[in-house]
């Protein structure tokens, strides 16, 4: 690309052919004010605030718009001459004659020294710069906005003034409107609960700061490109060309010697428990949301704040939400008491809020846990024995009281209590992942009624499963805290290594064999094996048994209509001989 020599305000520089004055000026650090400019689109020169003076060596001079005036050899640009400022002032006064002094225009007016515009102020907030129309058209590709009418009647509108079906609600128009004329309104008036996200997010984000791999991810259902095929701004700005919109999820197959199932849990969703108002009152949050807010990487920077950004004056922490509850999960989630105490400690460290713990039983069973509980009591946390019954808005409150009223029965003093607080944290149950049964089926391990995987023996084989080579670690086997999980994971790893380190495994001599010469590949046995040991050999057109997986249960042997499958050590001949022996 040939270089072109130009001079801007006395700075000589080389610009690439085809660049506009605005871009070249930015490179040498000269700011030119703009309203309708957006880097990733064709410049439109509608607002004309970016006026500059172009001059050649022979003294020819002209006021041009910097955003769309291409550079040429020997061009001299002046951005600050009286003529330029006059032009800008005039253009801004003309804009103001239509528009209210919205902040962006007011600031420009102050910069240009306009105290009283010659033609007064208008009543609109739209300056017809067209940035929204062009973004919707060029970047988003939704084509949901357009100019309507001509001359003084010109306006920004949707086609036929109707609610546009082409709008994808991306919000780009509202985000880039320089005057704030366009606003997003929620037509249905729903409360959008944050779904574990405490702040707005782009469609391309790094999931969280310690994410592995620490790379951004495109949320395909929010990405504009996925909806309209347009935009691709992230790809345009990425210097390493890392963005691939076509990337698809891939399935990879690995040969492994052992499998450790550590699929964890999912957080109980307290929305159905209407009495706690989760999803209804913004300051009722779940424990994991509190943890996210409290983390230094959170949108609040680790500050504990309410939805309105203010620090809460009082917080109620409700234990056993969804656990130890006949209607939801009967089991104890085992971690909540201790993290609830930890929350209390964190809150007292960071704020001066009053803290109320509402518990059924304080289960501080682990090493050092009881001592921590004592410490929390000493820190002045109010600990109330009684499960939180409901959370309602406070009526007739005093100014220093919270908006939310937590009702409970304090069983130690046998009194019904109502506690006004600013924020409620729900200690939600750990529950089995909803896809746990898929994993159980895939790995052929058993699953209890509450969804946790079942170990081979609760005392003697706590990390093994009924399938050899498959081990359990962590909460997928049952609710447990981090020390227990780490201990179990260590045991599972040791079991897996014990299995693999020999390089060979001991097998039971009894297993099923499909004799090739008798199998016709009818596939009757294919889906029967509870240990998924049977597969179909497409090449030979027969079924085969993986003897390492076979447990010699005999299901396939009984089913094989051709007598092609034999259970070693339990052949028909042997069984007949035994019967004859008994009858002899």
């Amino acid at each position: 690309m040939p270089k072109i020599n130009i001079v801007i305000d006395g700075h000589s520089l080389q610009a690439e052919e085809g660049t506009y004055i605005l871009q070249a000026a930015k490179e040498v650090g000269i700011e030119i004010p703009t309203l309708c400019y957006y880097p990733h689109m064709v410049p439109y020169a509608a607002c004309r605030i970016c006026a500059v003076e172009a001059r050649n060596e022979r003294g020819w001079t002209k006021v041009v718009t910097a955003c769309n005036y291409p550079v040429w050899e020997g061009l001299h640009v002046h951005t600050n001459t009286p003529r330029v400022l006059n032009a800008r002032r005039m253009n801004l006064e003309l804009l103001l004659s239509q528009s209210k002094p919205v902040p962006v225009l007011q600031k420009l007016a102050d910069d240009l020294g306009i105290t009283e515009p010659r033609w007064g102020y208008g009543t609109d907030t739209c300056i017809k710069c067209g940035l929204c129309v062009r973004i919707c058209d060029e970047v988003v590709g939704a084509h949901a906005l357009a100019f309507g009418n001509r001359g003084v009647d010109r306006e920004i509108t949707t086609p036929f003034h109707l609610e546009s079906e082409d709008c994808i609600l991306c919000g780009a128009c509202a985000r880039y409107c320089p005057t704030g004329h366009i606003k997003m309104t929620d037509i249905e008036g729903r409360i959008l609960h944050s779904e574990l996200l405490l702040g707005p997010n782009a469609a391309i984000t790094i999931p969280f700061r310690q994410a592995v791999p620490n790379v951004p991810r495109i949320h395909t259902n929010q990405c504009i490109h996925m909806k309209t095929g347009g935009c691709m701004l992230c790809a345009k700005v990425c210097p390493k060309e890392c963005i691939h919109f076509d990337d698809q999820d891939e399935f990879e197959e690995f040969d492994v010697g052992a499998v450790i199932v550590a699929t964890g849990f999912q957080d109980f969703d307290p929305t159905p428990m209407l009495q706690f108002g989760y999803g209804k009152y913004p300051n009722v949050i779940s424990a994991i949301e509190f943890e996210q807010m409290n983390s230094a990487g959170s949108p609040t920077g680790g500050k504990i704040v309410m939805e309105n950004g203010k620090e809460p004056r009082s917080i109620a922490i409700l234990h056993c939400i969804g656990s130890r509850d006949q209607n939801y999960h009967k089991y104890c989630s085992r971690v909540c008491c201790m993290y609830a105490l930890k929350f209390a400690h964190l809150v007292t460290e960071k704020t001066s809020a009053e803290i109320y713990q509402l518990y059924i039983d304080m289960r501080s069973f682990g090493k050092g846990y009881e001592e921590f509980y004592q410490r929390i009591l000493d820190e002045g946390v109010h600990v109330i024995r009684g499960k939180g019954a409901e959370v309602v808005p406070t009526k007739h409150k005093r100014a220093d009281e919270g908006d939310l009223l937590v009702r409970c029965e304090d069983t130690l003093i046998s009194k019904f209590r109502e506690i006004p607080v600013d924020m409620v944290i729900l200690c939600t149950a750990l529950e089995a992942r909803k896809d746990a049964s898929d994993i159980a089926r895939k790995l052929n391990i058993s699953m209890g009624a509450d969804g946790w995987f079942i170990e081979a023996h609760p005392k003697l084989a706590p990390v093994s499963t009924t399938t050899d080579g498959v081990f359990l670690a962590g909460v997928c086997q049952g609710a447990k805290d981090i020390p227990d999980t780490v201990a179990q994971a260590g045991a599972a790893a040791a079991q897996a290594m014990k299995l693999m380190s020999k390089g060979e495994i001991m097998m039971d001599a009894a297993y099923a064999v499909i004799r090739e010469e008798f199998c016709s590949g009818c596939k009757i046995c294919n889906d029967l094996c509870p240990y998924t040991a049977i597969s179909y050999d497409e090449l030979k057109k027969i079924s085969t048994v993986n003897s390492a997986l076979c447990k010699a249960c005999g299901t396939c042997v009984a089913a094989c209509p051709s007598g092609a499958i034999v259970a070693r050590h339990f052949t028909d001949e042997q069984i007949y001989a035994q019967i004859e022996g008994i009858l002899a």
Partner: protein
Amino acid sequence: MTKPKLAVYWAASCGGCDIAILDIEDKILDVANFFDLAFWPCIADFKYADVEAMPDKSITLTLFNGAIRSDENFHIAKLLRQKSVVLCAFGSCASDGCIPGLANFYDKQSIMEYAYIKSPSTDNPNGVMPQPKTKVPEGEITIPYLWNTVRTLPQVVDVDYIIPGCPPQSNQIAAVVEAVIDILSNSKPLPPKGTVLGATDKSCCDECKRERNIKKITKFVRPFEIIPDPNLCLMEQGMVCLGPATRSGCGAKCVSANVPCRGCYGKPINIHDQGAKMVSALASVIDSTDPEEIEQIIGQIVDPAGTFYRFSLPDSILRRAQV
């Protein structure tokens, strides 16, 4: 040089096996050239006395078709065993019992009553029943005594080889005939005793060209109830196809014509009871865990005993129903 002698006999059978032998087309001329016909009641008039007069082991090959269900069948079976070097159980009746063997679901009494009195087409107002011995002016005449239970040929005499099928397929018969002529004229060793000729070790599925998938049966249908997909396994379409529990050798003729295998080629070499094995296999692939639904699905199989044991009741572990 005297030609080797061939005998073909029909016991309790429909005659289809004899026709199947004639159906080997021009190969029948080789048979006629190579063998001396010692005994073949279907095509020529031979007397039992002629056979009785023959020296022992004077018949080289006997193809014995038909089940054993009367004194006469039994007598000739013993006689032919005595006179033959090689005795073949030819066809499903001789080897497995076949259709005549379905009589084992009843007893002799009820069969006789039905055949001579109760059946809608019988006109027998006096209730005359056949008697083993009848006195007539010329003297006493006898008819063979009918057994209560139908037996297979191997159950009554020592059998050298089995040629299965109802009837055995003509191409398989032709191949056997060719092999026999080859063995006899070139003095080759005979195959080991008990060998099944004209069939293979695999099941009928081996010869079936239909696409097979994992089986999940939710409904059983009879052939007239659906128009089957010509390319998909009939069992997956809900038909009771005995193919997987039936010896291959027929060329999967029925299934190629959209008719489920009925099992005429008998049980494959490794199983002991064709019907029981098929029941076991089907029970394994019924796609339900609800006992009532399973009951309802199984209920859709009409005449399960006759379906699963159509060709093999006398040869099965059951042998007969206890009446």
